[in-house]
């Protein structure tokens, strides 16, 4: 099963919205998201309720969509809307009595980004959200690849996660290095047509296992879909685990993309846009077949294979 990428947009802690990933990857990462001006594309009545995470999700989605008609909206997010979750928790944890304000609650559900994209567009199409930690985006991508072949139409698929100051603080308390954290939203438009496509996604899979099974699982994944050995691996880890991947596939050039975008559960969406840019020849890195390996936590692996259309 395969699908074609026709457009994309990433909002992150660099100027990726305006200039893409390859052009900005060597610049210093800001402490916070660099937001474009949303007021141009989202009505004030909607934007006022949107946390920064929801704004970047809707913003990246609208920019990726452009003028195209869309018949599916599918989002992968590991943790969902944390700022709103914290806000609502604060209310009832700190106040034993009195009534509670509902806005933070309703904007905290994991499907808020996908729901708000639909609301902004007034689009009643297929709409889903996946939250399978390190493979949340792979979940979304699998669904999107199937859907665009089922209904032969444009599908908007994205990966998004935010990092709040509290999350950073708790991570530090738990002994983690705060520099590894990142956040961002990457949205892409897929469909079943090669004409005019930027790149082709030829495989997506997720599994659980240890490093001893990794090499054989990757081989099987490539064989099952008739895929040639990649000439570049984009590897994402969480900074706390190592999979031994570099040893297993030692003869293939490997770039750690988590070092570029920071660590967050759905960052393989960032890697997918980055891989497409590479395949399109947008930067100095050369490759025609890229395998994205996302190993967020010890045993969870996501695989995405992308090549020239």
């Amino acid at each position: 099963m395969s699908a074609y990428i026709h457009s994309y947009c990433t909002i992150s802690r660099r100027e990726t919205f305006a200039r893409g990933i390859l052009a900005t990857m060597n610049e210093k990462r800001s402490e916070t998201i660099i937001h474009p001006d949303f007021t141009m594309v989202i009505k004030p009545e909607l934007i006022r309720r949107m946390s920064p995470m929801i704004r970047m999700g809707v913003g990246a989605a609208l920019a990726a969509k452009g003028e195209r008609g869309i018949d599916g909206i599918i989002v992968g997010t590991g943790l969902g809307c944390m700022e709103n979750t914290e806000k609502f928790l604060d209310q009832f944890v700190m106040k034993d009595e009195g009534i509670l304000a509902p806005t933070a609650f309703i904007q905290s559900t994991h499907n808020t980004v996908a729901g708000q994209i639909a609301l902004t567009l007034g689009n009643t199409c297929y709409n889903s959200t996946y939250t399978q930690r390190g493979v949340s985006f792979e979940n979304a991508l699998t669904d999107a690849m199937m859907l665009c072949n089922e209904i032969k139409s444009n599908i908007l698929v994205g990966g998004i996660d935010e990092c709040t100051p509290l999350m950073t603080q708790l991570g530090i308390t738990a002994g983690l290095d705060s520099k590894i954290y990142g956040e961002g939203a990457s949205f892409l438009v897929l469909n079943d047509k090669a004409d005019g496509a930027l790149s082709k996604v030829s495989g997506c899979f997720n599994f659980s296992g240890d490093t001893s099974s990794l090499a054989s699982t990757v081989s099987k994944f490539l064989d099952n879909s008739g895929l040639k050995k990649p000439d570049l691996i984009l590897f994402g880890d969480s900074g706390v685990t190592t999979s031994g991947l570099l040893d297993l596939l030692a003869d293939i050039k490997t770039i750690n993309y988590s070092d570029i975008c920071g660590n967050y559960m759905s960052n393989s969406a960032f890697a997918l846009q980055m891989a497409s840019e590479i395949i399109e020849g947008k930067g100095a890195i050369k490759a025609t077949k890229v395998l994205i390996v996302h190993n967020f936590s010890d045993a969870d692996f996501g695989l995405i294979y992308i090549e020239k259309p």
Partner: protein
Amino acid sequence: MGVAVTGIGIVSAAGLTVSENLAMLKSGKSPIRKIEGIQNLRKPYIGGQVSLSDEVLRKELAVSTEKIVPRTALLAMKAASEAWTGHKTSDEIRTAVISATSIGGMELSEQFYRQFKRANDFAKLNWLSVHDNGAGTNILSDFLGINTWRFTVSTACSSAANAILLGARMIQNNVIDRAIVGGADALCNFTLNGFDSLMIYDSEWCKPFDDRRKGLNLGEGAAYLVLESEESRKISGKNSICSVSGWANANDAWHQTASSPEGRGATLAITGALQKAGLTSEKIGYINAHGTATPNNDLSEATALNNVFGNNLPPFSSTKAVTGHTLAAAGAIEAVYSVLAIRDQIIFPNLNFEVPMKEKTCIPVTTLTSAKIDHVLSNSFGFGGNTSSLVFSK
């Protein structure tokens, strides 16, 4: 044609197994009562609680005392193990786990948060390791021994319905041969307070579709179904109980929480599911409605039902006056109830209904009824405009 259902499992306030749930549904009684055992409740909420403590569940499931496991995952394992009975993992059968949840580990996280915020106490910090939704699905999948294709859907109250339809699609598209699909959610302060802040939590027993309805009662529970392709069944040797023959997912695109007055998303979901199943509306023998008993939802759903079926609605009922609204698990719990309706050719009553709503011709079935049922429609509508419908067929 559809995809075969070859296993079902459920745990809810109505019972700890499929047969206990069936007995409760047939009895016309409701287990909804004052919620107990949850610390720091703001109000004496009533709801549908599963009558098993975490300790008892852990013992039954042989979960080590050191392991941090949220209640959602315990409920999931209990229901999934009933559904998975007689199934085995196999290299020849490509299998997926497609679960659903809205709270994930929140019932643990909110306890940490309270201590941390009020007393700067970090004692329960490691409880956050299972906060995210996927953690529970990993625990469930490890428990079942399934290591490939793990998914978690989180689309509020339509989550498990979307998990079921994803499984069916992945099988029909030959990506996998078998899937265990469903969802789980436990009661916690976050959701109890959340729905209360929207002023849609009834302090009394909820009244689905009744004109005097004031809101929902939450519930907790889990349910799973095993779906298989023909090839998989040849290897597993399992019988088909019925099939999932139709499905559709649409978005209301009206408001973040309220449903559109014309029931737009719901109408699209119901119509789409019938179309997928290749059925005209009169073929539906029973509708298990979403029927949360909120003023807004029930009216919107009634409107959608009238849009599709006219004024002559097929027999329908909401079972949420028995289970409470189990959020992400609802679509799966009600899918299992739909399967039972076909298997046993019965229609479950809509409890606590007396006064029909003024605006629509919409009167549910209120007593247990035997009927010839070939096809059942099950609706699940949620926040974020997410609306999904499923059709189950004999």
